[in-house]
């Protein structure tokens, strides 16, 4: 199992960046998820790690060894392609056996290993079909099987569950996770599904517009987003972000509301934006609780019923609607007033000019 290090790795196509200079260490045995919206450079990053795409600058190290210019076949990696890349003229079985045959393994052990992997991915009944005759989900499973059949130093997976239906995706998620724990193989996993990222990653690297926005544990990324993009992108719905004006330990919010900032935030806020200035208040839907004595007054805009809770959409003023989670017990008729309070440990603040989070412990 390998430690993978990216040092100022970048990729330009022509004059535009697909990935801006990027630093990242993926420790041996770690499961790192690259998460970001379409076109942010996830695939390009993965392809540079694999060697399928040449870097335009920077260095890639495997276990401290410089592999920047090494051919993919010399890096001992498995790659699950976003669009499967199955060998169209071979059956599923031949596809899966290919990496083992290429290494000249004995027939019997190949057959055994292929059966094993096929069973794990539940594709035994498809083994004699060609990719052209398989559904997208089945092709993806064959592609996964082809990657899993070997025991490489690292697994690189580019949206390996993207074509599966919801039910099977959950099962496969667990399967990949378990496999990772068993083999303890370094894994870089690309997805644009933040729920998948949070569920699977030891660490989540959030990318947007060719830049790494944040690199942290799922909890860090969720609770302490580094900037407005991450705050909005992670969670469904994302973090509530309200434009306000800070002065004298209070934030003036739309709808003539005033929120008293917890005292432990004062220093950090003064450092970041001064004693008087614009600020963005952020909180997750579950950080708010409806309370008649709450400081923030709103009107119920709409409500969505979910399985175990109700999501309230509350209107501070015409342009500001926040999402608040409430229990199933009470009814919230549309148009009625509702007040809420915030858990002081769960409020976050952002500087509207830099879009970066303000950190309580000082800004790095």
């Amino acid at each position, binding site marked *: 199992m390998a430690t993978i290090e990216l040092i100022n790795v970048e990729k330009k196509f022509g004059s535009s960046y697909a990935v801006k200079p990027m630093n990242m260490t993926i420790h041996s045995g770690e499961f790192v998820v690259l998460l970001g919206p379409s076109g942010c450079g996830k695939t390009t990053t993965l392809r540079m790690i694999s060697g399928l795409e040449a870097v335009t600058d920077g260095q890639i190290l495997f276990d401290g060894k410089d592999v920047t210019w090494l051919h993919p076949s010399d890096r001992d990696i498995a790659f699950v*392609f976003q669009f499967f890349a199955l060998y169209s003229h071979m059956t599923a079985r031949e596809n899966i056996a290919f990496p083992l045959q290429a290494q000249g393994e004995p027939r019997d052990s190949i057959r055994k290993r292929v059966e094993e992997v096929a069973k794990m991915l539940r594709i035994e009944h498809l083994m004699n079909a060609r990719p052209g005759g398989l559904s997208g989900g089945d092709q993806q499973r064959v592609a996964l099987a082809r990657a899993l059949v070997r025991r490489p130093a690292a697994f690189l997976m580019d949206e390996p569950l993207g074509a599966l239906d919801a039910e099977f995706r959950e099962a496969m998620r667990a399967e990949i996770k378990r496999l990772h724990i068993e083999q303890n193989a370094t894994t870089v996993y690309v997805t644009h599904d933040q729920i998948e990222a949070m569920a699977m990653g030891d660490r989540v690297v959030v990318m947007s517009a060719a830049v790494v926005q944040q690199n942290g544990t799922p909890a860090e990324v969720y609770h302490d987003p580094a900037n407005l993009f991450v705050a909005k992108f992670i969670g469904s719905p994302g973090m509530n972000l309200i434009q306000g004006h800070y002065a004298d330990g209070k934030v003036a919010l739309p709808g003539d509301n005033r929120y008293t900032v917890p005292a432990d935030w004062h220093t950090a806020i003064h450092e970041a934006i001064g004693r008087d200035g614009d600020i963005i208040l952020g909180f997750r839907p579950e950080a708010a609780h409806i309370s008649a004595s709450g400081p923030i007054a709103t009107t119920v805009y709409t409500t969505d019923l979910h399985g175990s809770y109700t999501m309230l959409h509350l209107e501070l003023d015409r342009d500001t609607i926040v999402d608040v989670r409430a229990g199933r017990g009470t009814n919230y008729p549309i148009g009625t007033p509702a007040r809420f309070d915030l858990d002081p440990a769960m409020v976050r603040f952002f500087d509207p000019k830099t879009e970066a989070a303000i950190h309580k412990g000082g800004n790095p």
Partner: protein
Amino acid sequence: MSSYSQPTRRRHLGDKRLIQMFIIPTVVLLILMNVFPLIYSLYLSFTEYSAINPTPPEWVGLDNYKKVLSDNLYWHNFAVTGRYALISVSLQMIVGFGLAMLLKEKFKGSGLLTTLILVPMMLSPAVVGAFWKNIFNPSFGIFDQFLGYSDPNTAPEWLGDPDLALWAVVIVDVWMWSPFVMLLSLAGLSAIPDYLYEAAAIDRASAWFQFRRITLPQVMPLLLIAVLFRTIEAFKQFDLVMGLTGGGPSLLQGTQAVNVTETVSVKLFRLAMPPQAQTGLSSAMAYVVLVIIIAISNLYIRALNKVREG
């Protein structure tokens, strides 16, 4: 506008009539030019008949076929054609596919080079024959000089030597038609998606393993089509032989003198045309060739379907 406002004016022709108008001329032409000669010659192949003789065809049953299939003289022509087809098509496949592998990577001038290589294919076989006749000439042709023979007296006489003449035809055919194989191969090679090679690189396949397991099977359908086309052409080989050797030189085989490059088509031509003008016999021979070509085509098409379906 007007066609919408006055729809009835253009309704003279019903769909059926229109369809007939398009189809009938084609069908008539086809019957006159293809179907009738086909059937008439089939009939003639069972008769004793000469087109330059006023005597009407006389029914002789299978006599002509028996003669064509059993007489050593004709058997020789089939053997020459078979040997020629096998050698020539094999070499064309090797040279053509080899060239395609070299030209598949784009480099500066590769487009121009590809076009130049295609030129022989576009020339008239009669012209090619005439040119190569000179090129093969031992006293002033450049072919022997190119091979390093400077003395015209010891230089091989490609078109006159019974051991070399068929090879000479093969060389010209390969020169002329390998580009065709190259073209089909290039089309096949460039249709192989890059991601297959990316996957193979990840799967740590060696270059040879990739060639064997990905490149070859992926281009196989087109290679088979090339083989099919070239084999049919080789069986019909006529113009190059006429231009180069005229079927000669002759060689004493046992008690019979045979022409070493006389392919079936050349023989057929000699039989059918004056002075011999054995119309019945030559029709029978032509039908034998037709059956052989259909049989070979069927084999290839079966192989093709097998490659496609696995």
